[in-house]
């Protein structure tokens, strides 16, 4: 073989070697994040259940913190008695109220942008604005909530609370809202609004035009077409996006710290003592929006930043509970997408 051929062969070999090494680097990168987080999760699980604590000093005793007490007890200064029931109910009501405010607004905005708006400067501006809003740090939303909802620019002093009549009585809303569930849910609603709008827009876009044309050709008005045809067809997509947005709201901590939600409380929202209170004493429900609250991430933060190792282990157990709740919500979203997404394959 001549000189050039040899040289070519050597170079080819080297190029293939480089290519293979690049592939290996890419594979390692892909699994790097996944493996690290998996290892950390396993470590956390061991720490919470007391099987093995890699960072514990020798004198701390290992015990299982993932007990039924954790779900039913209130916070306490004794780690053995402490539980996160107030945080669980707080997170639940926060999610319900955030959904109440953000879903109609978000889906409405998406319907307007996808079905009604023409491509003009105003629409372009709204789109750009939504994209930018999605990138604003959550803590800035916390400042917005603190100033506009919790304090209302300190403009109101000794203002009487406003009553909103509902079927079973009056919901009393203090002015300014203060550090209540109402403030928290309004703040988080504004934060997740861009996510809901963008997800709903995508879901609406995936409904084929022929459905709309068929409905309009039968004499339906534009809104009838949207309400009876387009929205039902895009519902799985909208629900999936909404659930993911709400699960983001449940895990959020920073804006709630800023608006002044408490991290230590021994009361459930509305001073409810037992679940049956919601049925036997429905007036408890009316005080929920105006009551102080804590949520699971805030309790985790409170426990985990305490110096005692017992509380840090308790925080690990609470993290497991929070992650299980989020896993259920994500699973529901994936199920909706797969189950209904297949049936509605146009």
């Amino acid at each position, binding site marked *: 073989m001549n000189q050039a051929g040899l040289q070519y062969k050597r170079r080819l070999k080297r190029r293939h070697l480089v290519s293979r090494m690049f592939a290996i680097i890419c594979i390692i990168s892909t699994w790097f994040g996944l493996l690290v987080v998996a290892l950390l999760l396993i470590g956390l699980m061991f720490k919470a259940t007391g099987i093995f604590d890699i960072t514990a000093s020798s004198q701390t005793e290992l015990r299982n913190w993932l007990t039924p007490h954790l779900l039913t007890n209130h916070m306490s200064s004794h780690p053995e008695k402490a539980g996160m029931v107030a945080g669980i109910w707080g997170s639940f009501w926060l999610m319900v109220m955030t959904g109440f405010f953000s879903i109609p607004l978000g889906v409405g905005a998406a319907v307007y942008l996808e079905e009604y708006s023409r491509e003009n400067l105003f629409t372009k501006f709204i789109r750009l604005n939504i994209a930018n809003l999605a990138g604003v740090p959550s803590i800035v939303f916390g400042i917005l909530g603190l100033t506009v909802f919790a304090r209302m620019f300190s403009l109101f002093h000794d203002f009487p609370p406003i009553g909103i009549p509902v079927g079973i009585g009056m919901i009393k809303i203090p002015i300014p809202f203060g550090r209540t569930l109402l403030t928290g849910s309004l703040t988080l609603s504004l934060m997740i609004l861009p996510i809901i709008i963008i997800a709903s827009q995508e879901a609406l876009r995936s409904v084929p035009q022929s459905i709309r044309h068929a409905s309009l050709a039968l004499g339906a008005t534009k809104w009838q077409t949207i309400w009876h045809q387009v929205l039902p067809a895009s519902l799985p997509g909208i629900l999936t996006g909404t659930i993911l947005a709400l699960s983001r709201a449940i895990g959020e901590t920073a804006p709630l710290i800023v608006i002044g939600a408490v991290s230590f409380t021994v009361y459930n929202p509305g001073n409810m003592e037992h679940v049956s209170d919601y049925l036997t004493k429905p007036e408890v429900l009316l005080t929920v929006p105006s009551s102080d609250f804590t949520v699971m991430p805030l309790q985790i933060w409170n426990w985990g930043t305490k110096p005692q190792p017992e509380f840090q282990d308790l925080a690990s157990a609470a*993290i497991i509970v929070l992650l299980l709740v989020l896993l259920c919500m994500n699973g529901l979203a994936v199920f909706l997408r797969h189950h209904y997404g297949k049936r509605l394959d146009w």
Partner: protein
Amino acid sequence: MLPSSKHSLSAKTNFRRIWEGIVLTSLMFCATVSVFVTAAIIFVLVSESVVGIGDSLAFFQEVSLWSFLTDTAWAPQYGEGQFGILPLLAGTLWVTGIASVIGLPVGLASAVYLSEYASPKTRGIIKPLLEVLAGIPTVVYGFFALFFVTPLLIKPFAENVLGIEANIFNAMSGGIVVGIMIIPMVTSLSEDVIRAVPRGLREAGYALGSTRFDVSTKIVVPAALSGILASFLLAISRALGETMVVMIAVGAQPKLTWNPFETMCTMTANIASMANGDAGTGSVEYRSIYAVAFTLFIITMGMNIFSQFILNRYREVYH
């Protein structure tokens, strides 16, 4: 019978027309809410930091912009109080810098792997897993850093290899964990633009005898460069705005230092700890959080707008 039924039909039509109008108006209102929110954010930040409403003074009417930008200490509680953004900015830059060094290359490499190498089956496993990672709350990542990364990785490394003392709260562990946190974001955003590069370009490369490495680094990545840069900018702005991880793992002591193994304070952690503390409403300390938030808002907003500009201006459109 005919006229009356005709009459009722027209009445129905009229009602429908009005109803359509009501619906359109309320939907338009929903769409404009997002604009109101942006306007409200800017109004709140400006009114508390630049121009006060009524007789209340804004932050920059008490502390000059010059001292805010050049003072090297952030110590609101001592005497007159020093309000220099530099230590907070330095803390933010340290954390964001470390996070970028880890998150951006790893995220890009895994995006290349997913779109160029992985089989559809592998993709089907990894993509949902990345979504799960992206859904883990930031407070959990914060405790990963404090419980595991600092005692198991940072402390032994600093003490045994570098021979220096590492604080239990340090910028290094926070930065590393924020870096791991932004990997899924970089991967999914970059993978979308990399996959959008047309097949023909790749096949032309292979036809000329290129290896996969050549095609990936010399054809696909350059073709998708604008989108990749945009995803990098979004990820960096996410790292800048990250609060819980830095508050838990990096601490809340504003310090201007070159040592990443020391405790620091970022802009976000400063806002959260000041708001959580007991600074009275109306005091300069209380209003300083608005000035810091305003700075943070301008930086992240600028990066978001810049990334959209890159996407629109430099996007290669293939048909």
